[in-house]
């Protein structure tokens, strides 16, 4: 358990670089972040289960201009840190498990807290950008390069700090919340919301494809 916060901090840096700095290659999506964190901490199946359910909430997210979904990677790290042991991937049977609900709720809360942290970093960058642009207008082109490198470092620091914090706080919070015996069919709720999002994205013109998928899904369920 002692290495957990440092692993989360390292993964936080990777996820933030993928999400806020570079061209995203899916590593910051909850299902990937959860699987990576789970694999690094010896709880791969728990990581995949938490990540997949959180992914259902942000399966279609349009990142245009300033519109960004909350920090799904942080939600995954928090949920995996807080999730109970013994979650196994058995052909989707884990979807019926009600024990994941508190961890997923904590994950969603952390995702919104992460968005607040991102906004704080962006405010710092905006202030520094004014100065850098003024310097560049006077021929100091290095100011642009320094600002850009500084922005990368700020985001990376944010990822490390937030990853570390959730890995320290969430297991303790889960222990405190355990006596409440909070349980809910979170898997079915998340799955339904993902179906709605996918259906809305594919549009009504795809109804024959939905139908084909529906038949395949039924066959898959009863095979």
């Amino acid at each position, binding site marked *: 358990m002692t290495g957990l916060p440092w692993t989360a901090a390292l993964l936080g840096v990777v996820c933030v670089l993928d999400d*806020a700095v*570079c*061209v995203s290659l899916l590593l910051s999506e909850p299902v990937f972040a959860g699987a990576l964190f789970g694999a690094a901490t010896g709880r791969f199946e728990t990581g995949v289960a938490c990540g997949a359910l959180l992914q259902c909430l942000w399966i279609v997210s349009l990142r245009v201009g300033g519109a960004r979904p909350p920090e799904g990677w942080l939600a995954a790290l928090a949920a995996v840190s807080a999730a109970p042991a013994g979650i196994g991937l*058995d052909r989707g049977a884990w979807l*019926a498990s009600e024990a994941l609900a508190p961890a997923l709720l904590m994950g969603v809360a952390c995702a919104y807290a992460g968005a607040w942290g991102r906004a704080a970093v*962006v405010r710092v960058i905006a202030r520094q950008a004014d100065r850098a642009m003024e310097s560049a*207008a006077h*021929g100091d082109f290095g100011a642009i390069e320094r600002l850009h490198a500084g922005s990368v470092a700020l985001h990376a620091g944010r990822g490390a700090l937030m990853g570390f914090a959730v890995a320290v706080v969430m297991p303790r919070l889960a222990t405190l919340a355990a006596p409440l015996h909070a349980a809910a069919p979170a898997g079915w709720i*998340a799955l339904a919301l993902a179906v709605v999002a*996918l259906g809305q994205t594919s549009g009504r013109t795809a109804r024959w494809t939905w139908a084909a998928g529906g038949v395949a899904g039924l066959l898959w369920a009863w095979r």
Partner: protein
Amino acid sequence: MKGNTVPVPGRIAWRAWSLEASWHPRRLQGVGALFALMPVLRRGIDPVAAVQRHGAPFNANTWMAPAALGAIARLEQDGRGQDAVRVRDVVSPVLSGLGDAYVFQAVRPACIALAVTGAFVGHPVPALAAAFVLYTVAALAQIGRGFARGAMLGGDAGRAVAQLRPPLGVAHFARFIVALAAGAWATWGLARAWQAGPSSAFILGGTLCVGYTAARRQRSAALLFAGLVVLAILLRRFSNPVGLP
């Protein structure tokens, strides 16, 4: 005007990889675009004027930005600064719109649906690996192809948007996968929930209705999820009026 034959430096595409790092509301990706273009702007006749020309806000889909930046770099290298500004202001928003539909409504959800399906069926490793590889290949192909064509077209980028747009076949296939996943997850979920207990199927079906209504009103799925889970916890704890399991 015939352009010079000096190739546009490939490191512009590499530097554009981190376009989003210095994003902020006032200039959006403007500082990132300046950072990417700096190798060309520095070598121009009047670098200060070039930096001021490109100090305005810039915003583009990160898969399509290299195409626009390649064309801008080509024009700046040819000494056609005003044409470069026109490409930035007129062509890159068009490319960005095409890229947003391609990435966020087709390729990305399709690859994520593949990864999550792997988790549902109990084979996450091959599904996660396949989704990652497919997405990365699609991104690298679009970025590399877009930058090379943008740098070649320069000022003609506006007339040749069709050459820069993402491949339609890939977009159609990805949307097909998304629709297929929507249908398959719905019936598979209902069947598995029914096997787990009729009340689970009731919860899944009810959430489909509530989720559909909320999505039409642009409500956040994550907040709706949190609300429904808290409601279910409270119902289980204090009463059981709808037979929750």
